[in-house]
């Protein structure tokens, strides 16, 4: 059982992964990355790090499984209900009125945010006015989301409570069915979504999105990767397009913060400057 990993060992592991699989995790936030790494190593019954590193080098770990487990996906549906109310009341009706609203949800992990947005659009009757692009670097995560999530009932319970605080039209239970103790959201909700497998910094950017929702992903990157990702997101927005982050996140320390205006301080909604 591994209880902790020092910085030197963490860097060795990250280097081995990059050399073998060409995925670079060196700019992930260290504390949270180490938590997931330790979990993965222990769940795969490694008793020492040398064996783990050797197996990486020999390509003997299931890498899709590694990507799936290393990405943190423990958010909630309708997390921060006040944010989603704001999106529903203040922004979506105006943005979607022209029938060509393009929204990007990059780097999705659990699909919580995606299904939340889709339920809101459904209740507003706007699903067909909106095209959503959802990308993730994990094939396994994408497959699960396409099947409706398969969320634990405990997680759904949290989502139900959040949905009530959000003050939705019905109940969350209207949107899912339970099979083998897992909740599957109605996949007709995501009929307007194009899914992509991609790494966010390598995504081709075209300035075409009016809204990018990227909540509680930046926190898993260090400042250098946050800067790169912020630039990518800004490049992907139309002028005056909006970027929503998680309530604990900020672009204040980012090198491209001067390209945005913070229009909602509490809910962390930014607008791209024109020109």
């Amino acid at each position, binding site marked *: 059982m591994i209880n*902790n990993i020092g*910085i030197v060992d963490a860097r060795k592991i990250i280097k081995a992964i990059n050399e073998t699989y060409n995925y670079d995790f060196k700019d992930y*936030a*260290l*504390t*949270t990355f180490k*938590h997931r790494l330790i979990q993965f190593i222990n769940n795969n019954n490694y008793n020492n790090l040398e064996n783990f590193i050797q197996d990486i080098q020999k390509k003997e770990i299931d890498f899709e499984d590694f990507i799936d487990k290393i990405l*943190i996906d*423990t*958010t909630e549906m309708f*997390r*921060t*209900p*006040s944010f989603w109310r704001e999106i529903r009341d203040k922004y979506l009706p105006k943005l979607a009125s022209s029938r060509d609203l393009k929204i990007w949800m990059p780097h999705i992990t659990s699909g919580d945010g995606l299904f939340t947005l889709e339920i809101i659009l459904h209740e507003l009757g706007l699903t067909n006015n909106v095209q959503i692009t959802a990308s993730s670097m994990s094939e396994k995560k994408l497959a699960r989301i396409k099947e409706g999530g398969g969320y634990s009932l405990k997680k759904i319970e949290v989502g139900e409570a*959040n949905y009530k*605080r959000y003050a939705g039209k019905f109940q969350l239970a209207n949107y899912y069915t339970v099979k083998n103790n897992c909740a599957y959201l109605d996949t007709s909700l995501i009929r307007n979504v194009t899914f992509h497998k991609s790494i966010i910094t390598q995504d081709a950017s075209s300035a075409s999105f009016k809204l990018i929702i990227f909540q*509680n992903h*930046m*926190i*898993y990157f*260090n*400042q250098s990767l*946050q800067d790169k990702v912020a630039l990518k997101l800004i490049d992907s927005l139309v002028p005056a397009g909006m970027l929503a982050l*998680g*309530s*604990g*996140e*900020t672009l*204040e*320390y980012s090198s491209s913060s001067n390209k945005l205006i913070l229009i909602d301080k*509490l809910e962390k909604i930014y607008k791209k400057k024109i020109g």
Partner: protein
Amino acid sequence: MDYKAVIIGGSAGSFQVVTKIISALPKKYPLPVFLCLHRLKHIRSGFVEALSIKSQMSIEEPTDKQPIKSGKIYLAPANYHMYVELGNKFALSTEDPVNHSRPSIDLSFESVAYNYNRKAIGIILSGANRDGALGLKAIKSAGGVAIVQDPKECQVPTMTTASINATKVDYIFKTEEIINFLLNLR
């Protein structure tokens, strides 16, 4: 100063104790003070304001990657874990709750132990569950100072008792003694 940070963990019955402690600290206290208190996740505002009423130090909920400064009190924000990250910055996370709690006292304390080693001071106050026991143990194992509020004085002694059972703490203090300790650090 031999220390780099003070971290205080508390739950049920700790609000008044925390208020008392922070109101005794001067405006330019030479260390940063982290507060990891169990709180209702959907109530985001009001807590900082309530704590600020009697505090001379400024109090805020840090955002992710915010630099840590001495003389400030930082309260773990609702529904996030709060860590100290490389480069003396904060990191937040939405990882699973630990001991039903997000923020988790154990996780915050562990990251403080990892980053500050023997220069960390951890204090566990009144609370109704076992969160914080492993975190305080991590601080002690890293060579830091482990303090618990005297269970006899706690409104709910579960958390402090669990901490005392988990590690050989340095001090079991009443609130006034915690204050004196923090004011007399060298």
